[in-house]
């Protein structure tokens, strides 16, 4: 029998974009056990939100994540608008859907590049970085920013689509139609890429349902779930979006990394179609229900209730729940469940019977967004138990640690 040893992937690792640790038990190159330990970048954003009013929290929620920042904003705003029954003009809904799709393009192209990097295919990685610039340029033309756009506000959006922006978007669609084919070729034609991704990190359809996978991860396992199809929000009901599942294209869903790559590449094409249709059918009208922020805040202050916002972020279902209390200007409480939180549970299953060489690829295959995910309460993984630490206990523990550090 071979000697077993444990190797950490992370918390800081070349193949990973964000800090997460996977302790892998290895026999030779084979993975026989895996423990995933998150917790490196918990920032307590939800707690910070309790000192801020909903308009301020918009910009806070944008900083939950770097890539799906707009998805978090829309999920948060939909929750606030749901709690206070706030109307949104139709043109604003279209613009929101447009930016959501642009963000999906951004996220998926970046992911495709990073996945290629994980298998040592640096040329495709650099190509992905080049392609990604184009959508960022369009977002910059629209909002003036490339990562955190600051586009949405309560009851609408802040920036309108001018003819110049419209032209930039159309150019971008044409550019991607011409250039994105390379990634499609990586999926279907490159033998090494196929050898690296086929039957790696398999998650079967039953497991995807049982372990609550969402978004492209679930769709790659053959589950038709896309919130844009099942429960359309914003302007999506007008476009008749259909969930993309691999069995429609290859006859069978394997649920491996290859299928996840395929689903994302096909979703880029789908997003391009949606963007085109949004630009065709953009209705005239106001872009925001009420421009005066003081009036908006006054309305929100009177509102009482819990609102729910669920949208299809690039990585899966992004759920925000917000409670507003009448007479209280600040957000009473706010809960975020980012898609990675649901998908990360499947990691240990995906590691089964794979090799060390596959580990970073498998971690990346669900497109993890660790900073999105890390907002749970304190759990004690060391003893296997799980308990919530109260504020007083935490304070005492912190003081004790400070004392310990000072003694050294």
């Amino acid at each position: 029998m071979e000697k077993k040893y444990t190797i950490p992937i992370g918390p800081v690792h070349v193949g990973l974009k964000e800090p997460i640790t996977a302790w892998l038990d290895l026999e030779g190159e084979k993975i026989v056990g895996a423990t995933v330990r998150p917790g490196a970048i918990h920032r307590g954003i939800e707690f910070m939100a309790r000192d801020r009013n909903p308009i301020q929290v918009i910009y806070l929620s944008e900083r939950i994540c770097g890539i799906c920042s707009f998805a978090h904003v829309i999920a948060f705003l939909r929750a606030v608008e749901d709690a206070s029954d706030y109307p949104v003009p139709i043109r604003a809904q279209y613009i929101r859907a447009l930016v959501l799709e642009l963000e999906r393009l951004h996220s998926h192209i970046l992911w495709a590049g990073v996945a290629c990097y994980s298998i040592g295919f640096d040329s495709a990685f650099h190509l992905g970085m080049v392609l990604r610039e184009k959508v960022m340029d369009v977002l910059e033309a629209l909002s003036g920013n490339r990562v955190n756009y600051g586009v949405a506000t309560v009851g609408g959006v802040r920036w309108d689509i001018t003819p110049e922006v419209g032209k930039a978007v159309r150019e971008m669609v044409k550019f991607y139609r011409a250039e994105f084919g390379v990634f499609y070729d990586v999926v279907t034609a490159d033998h090494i890429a196929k050898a690296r991704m086929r039957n790696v990190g398999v998650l079967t359809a039953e497991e995807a349902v049982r372990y609550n996978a969402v978004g492209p991860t679930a769709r790659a396992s053959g589950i038709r779930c896309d919130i844009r199809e099942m429960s359309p929000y914003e302007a999506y009901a007008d476009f008749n979006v259909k969930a993309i599942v691999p069995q429609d294209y290859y006859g069978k869903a394997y649920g491996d990394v290859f299928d996840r790559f395929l689903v994302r590449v096909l979703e880029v094409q789908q997003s391009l179609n949606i963007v085109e249709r949004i630009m065709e059918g953009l209705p005239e009208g106001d872009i925001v229900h009420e421009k005066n922020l003081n009036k908006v805040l006054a309305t929100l202050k009177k509102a009482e209730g819990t609102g729910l916002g669920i949208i299809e972020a690039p990585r899966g279902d992004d759920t925000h729940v917000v409670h507003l209390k009448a007479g209280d200007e600040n957000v009473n409480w706010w809960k975020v469940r980012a898609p990675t939180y649901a998908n990360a549970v499947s990691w240990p299953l995906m590691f089964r019977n794979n090799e060390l060489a596959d580990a970073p690829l498998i971690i990346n295959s669900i497109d993890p967004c660790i900073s999105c995910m890390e907002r749970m309460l304190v759990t004690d993984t060391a003893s296997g138990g799980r308990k919530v630490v109260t504020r007083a206990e935490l304070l005492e523990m912190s003081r004790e640690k400070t004392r310990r550090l000072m003694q050294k």
Partner: protein
Amino acid sequence: MIAIVMRLIAGTALMLLVVVLAFLYDGADRIISARMQRRLGPPLLQPFLDLLKLLGKENIVPRRAVPWAFNGAPWVAAASMILVFLYIPIGSLPPVLGTHGDLILILYLLGLSGVAMAVGGFASGNPIANVGAQREMILMMSYELPLAVVAATLAWMAHKTGMPGDPFNLETFAGMSVWSVTGKVGFIGMLCLLIALVLVVPGETGKGPMDIPEAKTEILDGLIIEYSGRNLAMFKITFALRALALSALIVVLFFPWSPGPFLRLGGIFLFAFDFLWFWVKVFVVQVFVVTLMRTAFGRFKIWQASEFYLIKVAGLSIAGMILASLDLLM
């Protein structure tokens, strides 16, 4: 006595020259690869700057390492690679130590440098380096078979067709093109051997798609993870020299032609021209077998690479051997 002194001087000059050339070609390799990826790439002299920087850095030996093996391995690896060039004829110049070693010795020196790297990885006491060293050993065992078949077939060809000189000595192949002695069937056989040798190069040089022992995104540069400072500089030299040595070997074995005689050059000019022409050929070969290959493909997994070498490339080289034998029998 004078002959020995001459050899010492020539050998030292050659060693310095190949190190400089290896780094220049490495810089060019990085620029060409970058241009193919729509990047600008580093300046041509970047490898030299990296080397200078590394030589000035602290040399850290991990607490759990075996110091003598950890520190010795990079030197053995670099020294054995640099020795290879003393046995390779450059243009129409005979190798410096030509009469003291042949193709088999070169293969062993290449192997020794790989083993030294693996020893360094095992000695560094890091589990990730351990994985990298295991991969290096597996990879070596995989590509040795096609490499040995290529070498043996070529020597047998040289022996049977009566090429002048010792069949295992590289000067034999440098003096007379191996393509000129084969028939039609043998030509196809030689082509198979050439392709097999080209496919062995990525494994031997540790460049993509066979950069498995040093896979950055998997095992964080694998067996060189713990190396720093002077030791890492030695490994950088080793990597650059490996690419150069393998390209030079391909040139000597398969592309010995030179337009020198047609230009009616004579005496010292012919030697000088052939010398420069040789390095031009090496550069072209290196661009094709190292730069293009590493830019165009992703990375294999170790068992896939092993299968690739032991079944596909070995099959190709054995097919080359059979075709060459058929040619000789006919």
